[in-house]
């Protein structure tokens, strides 16, 4: 075989290998990055579940229908520089969960249990986006808008309200006018 043909084959094989190896490396790093993001999402989900569980317990302990309790929470604006979502899930037979997921990669998510009860009954988690009513007044003078997402520039809080059953959710505080 002439020497030049050998070089052509060798160079093409090396280039192919470089591409394959680069692709494999990006896959590996993507899996590792997803793993790390899952850990951070887990931290956020656990934190929200802890605070949500506490306000639900306090509203339940008040034994006073009509009472509303809120607690301000500090959420990171991004996870690894990327946007994320927080959802509240009340799955019949599985219980209540807080789920945090990446907006760009919904397959990267973490769930945290809110250990309320097995059946998920008695507590209504506001897992849908509510743009207007009800607006619960907060002790800080603002109002709480129940929400299921996150966005920068707002102060987030968890809230619970007891009417016929306990309603609870994640909200953001809108400062009072003036």
């Amino acid at each position, binding site marked *: 075989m002439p*020497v030049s043909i*050998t*070089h052509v084959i*060798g*160079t093409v*094989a*090396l280039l192919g*290998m*470089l591409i394959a*190896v680069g692709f*494999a*490396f990006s896959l*590996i*790093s993507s899996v*590792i990055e997803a*793993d*790390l993001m899952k*850990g*951070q999402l*887990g*931290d956020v989900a*656990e*934190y929200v*579940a*802890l605070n949500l*569980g*506490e306000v639900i*317990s*306090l509203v*339940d*302990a*008040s*034994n*006073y229908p009509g009472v509303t309790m809120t607690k301000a929470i500090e959420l990171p604006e991004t996870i690894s520089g990327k946007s994320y979502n927080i959802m509240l899930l009340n799955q019949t037979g599985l*219980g209540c969960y807080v789920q945090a997921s990446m907006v760009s990669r919904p397959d990267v998510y973490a769930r*945290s*249990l*809110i*250990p*309320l*009860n*097995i*059946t998920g*009954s*008695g507590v209504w988690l506001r897992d849908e986006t509510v743009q207007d009513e009800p607006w619960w007044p907060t002790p800080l003078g603002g109002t709480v808008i129940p929400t299921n997402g996150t966005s920068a520039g707002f102060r987030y809080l968890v809230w619970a309200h007891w009417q016929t059953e306990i309603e609870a959710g994640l909200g953001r505080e809108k400062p009072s006018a003036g």
Partner: protein
Amino acid sequence: MHTIYEYLFTGLIIVAIVVASATMLTSISMPLKMISEREQLKVTTEKLLSQVLLSTGSAPLADGTVTADWGRNLNVAGADLTSFGLAKQSETTRESFVLDVDKVQRLNFSVNSLRVEPRSVATSLQLGNDYGFALEIFPVLNVTVRPPKVTGSSEEYPVLVRNNEGMPIPGASVTAEMYYIVNGYVANLSASSVSGTPKELGNFTVSFDTRGVSNKTAFERSKTLALSVDYEGTRSIQFRRYGTGTYDAYVLGDCLFHSGSAAKSSGSIFEVITYRRGSSSYFRNVTFTLTNATTAADGGYARYQMSYLEPSAIGFMFDDGSKVWVASRSVFFYGPGGFSTIPSASTFPLGSQLQRVVTIADQAYVFRLYLWRMSW
């Protein structure tokens, strides 16, 4: 031919670099992942502790309703719980970290059918097979009563008061009464003196002058010590039997249980209650009736119904003619054998631990929760 070897060698170097880089990336990310998982375990522990201490828990009843006062309801078995919580149910606003004595006693109750097993708790907390846990409940004031010294007409009970780190508590207020049953009635003998020996080291001696006891035989058969130690609003109470004819009984809700079969179908039950005045506690006793002697569902235990249960009762005495049954409302379980998903373990696995001071039956206890992952 050597040209091909050069390319192969170059290829091998590239693969080696990539494998090394991937290994480095993984090894760098592992500690971060471990830190994150440990933090999450801590938060999960805090979350579970809040649920257990602030929530009443619930269980469905046969009539379709749900009860939050499941501890005293003898129709509720441990496996019936839909949610687990030990907080005391109240018609008005509940006090935080005040636990229901019946719910707590269910965790290590002697009658099998009424005991709540760790697996049932894990199921109702939805822990699945991912986590293991253990609970410890012990008094804030570590009160030890040493064997009494009986000399003639005097009985001296050495009492050591320590905190949980074993440090002496010298300024505690110690109150004691000796209760005994004579001719079907309960009698009490107040401590003639409570002296420090030396008091600065948390050592006390509670003395009883038995010269006033008319029926020494009845006294020796049924004597039971009620002891209260108060320190800066923290209280620990013991109701300890010393009589030769006394045996352990158990109270749950308004029922009294004892091992064996019922010797009498009904009788009198003496309830010792306590109340505070200033920085000290005082004891009183009241008498109610026991009726409806039956055998508990899983056999081996007699069950009586009390006509009334005083909310502040700390001890109970019942004389069935042959034995004096003594029950206390104090709670104590400690160590891996106490209440754990792996009771056979000699130590707790590596995990997270959190504790709070709680109130049970007007006494201060440390409530400690251990949580660990079954797999990492």
